[in-house]
């Protein structure tokens, strides 16, 4: 048996040394890249969690509207990884909305739905059994639910980021973004260029720019050109805001953006 372990040790030493040699080559490349400051070894793109937008809405005194959510029982309709990834983002955003607005019953329901999609996508961090237990134990405590779901979203996105799972992260963030903008826009009853939430919708252009950069960074064969084209079309509408002198956003520009978001959202959840 001792001999057996010795052979195993030799083999692993061999495999590990091969692995290390490869890493060294990569690191040598990094040193060369370092001389050119415009090409960093690693570029990370982050976007704020939907929680932040909903916190602004909650603090502005807006009311929770259940009808704005994607019904939880629709989750079984999503069969492909593409649809599951996008709708995982949609439900993660819905979950954040319920949590921030202290809708504890809905929080539990949307956590279960989001977890089901997370399991299907192989996301073991953020939506595991331990979290389900914590949610169950804190079902009447809004502050704890807020912290737990906030942690879950953050852990899930960090996990996907570190696993480097191609298009999963930008797809998920697209779903979360489109749902947040849709909920925020439908919560506004009348347009006013000074309205805090209208301005926040205008600010969503920065999140969209980051999401599109993420899509650009993934290999062409893993990309989704139809979806990216639709997002670029929304970005074109946002780009018009850069030309405004007196106001951040006009009603015409606002209507154009929210209409495009509404159409894309309908395609994603449908």
């Amino acid at each position: 048996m001792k001999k057996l372990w010795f052979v195993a040790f030799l083999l692993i030493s061999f495999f590990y040394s091969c692995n290390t040699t490869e890493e060294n080559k990569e690191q040598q490349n990094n040193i060369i890249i370092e001389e050119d400051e415009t090409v960093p070894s690693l570029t990370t793109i982050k976007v704020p969690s939907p929680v932040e937008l909903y916190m602004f809405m909650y603090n502005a005194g807006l009311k929770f509207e259940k009808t704005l959510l994607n019904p939880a029982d629709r989750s079984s309709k999503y069969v492909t990884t593409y649809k599951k990834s996008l709708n995982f983002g949609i439900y993660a955003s819905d979950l954040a909305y319920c949590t921030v607005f202290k809708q504890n019953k809905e929080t539990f329901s949307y956590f279960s739905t989001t977890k089901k999609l997370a399991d299907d996508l192989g996301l073991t961090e953020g939506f595991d059994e331990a979290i389900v237990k914590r949610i169950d134990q804190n079902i009447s405590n809004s502050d704890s639910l807020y912290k737990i779901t906030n942690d879950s979203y953050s852990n899930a996105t960090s996990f996907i980021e570190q696993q480097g799972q191609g298009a999963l992260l930008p797809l998920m963030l697209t779903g979360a973004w489109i749902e947040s903008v849709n909920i925020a826009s439908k919560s506004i009853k009348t347009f006013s260029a000074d309205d805090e939430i209208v301005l926040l919708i205008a600010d969503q252009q920065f999140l969209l720019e980051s999401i599109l950069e993420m899509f650009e960074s993934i290999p062409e064969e893993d990309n989704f050109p139809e979806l990216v084209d639709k997002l670029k079309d929304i970005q074109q509408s946002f780009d018009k805001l850069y030309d405004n002198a007196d106001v951040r956003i006009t009603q015409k520009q606002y209507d154009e953006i929210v209409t495009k978001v509404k159409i894309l959202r309908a395609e994603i959840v449908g």
Partner: protein
Amino acid sequence: MKKELMLITVCLFLASCIFPTLASAQCNKKKYCAENFGDYDYNSQSSFASLAPGDTSRANVVLYANQTYRIFVCADPSLGDVKYQVILPERKTSRRIDQIKKDTVVTYKTDEYGEYMYDDLGNMVVQSKTVVVDTTWITERFTFEKVLYDNKNNKSGKPYFEYAPKKSGRLQVKIQVPGGDPENQSCVNIYVGRKVIGSKNFQKQARYNEN
């Protein structure tokens, strides 16, 4: 015996292959510079990576107006003194004239029946000549990088950058790990904490060091 050997070899090989990914995944579990955290929520846009000496890295984040942010970079001490800058990419537009086209528009006299009138030489009789100027404009967009914070040239005396943006926008954190043994790969964490200005709700906001 042979089967056992094969099984052990395969398991160890797989473990060695996934080791680098696991090492990177562990960085978010490590809390460097905990004394800098303060009363901020670091959940949304902090990032964690395993870098080697000599590596450079960039993180793009989006900051909302009406929130205060605390940004800092902390790395495993074995990597040495990591340099970082917080940069504001400013987007400016400028309009300039592309071209000015001048066209002369000529109108001709017509008679009471709407027919053109001709002079003795058979040319149409000119009623008026107007010069029309058509100016076309080009809008050019430029992005400038403005350094808001440099940890190697920091006059604030604080080991972090605090910022309350008046307008929402994107920021970039640029990192440079000093040179050294390329095998000494370790964690470099970018902490982006936020706090809503003047919010009385959610007083017990998530804090990074709470469980």
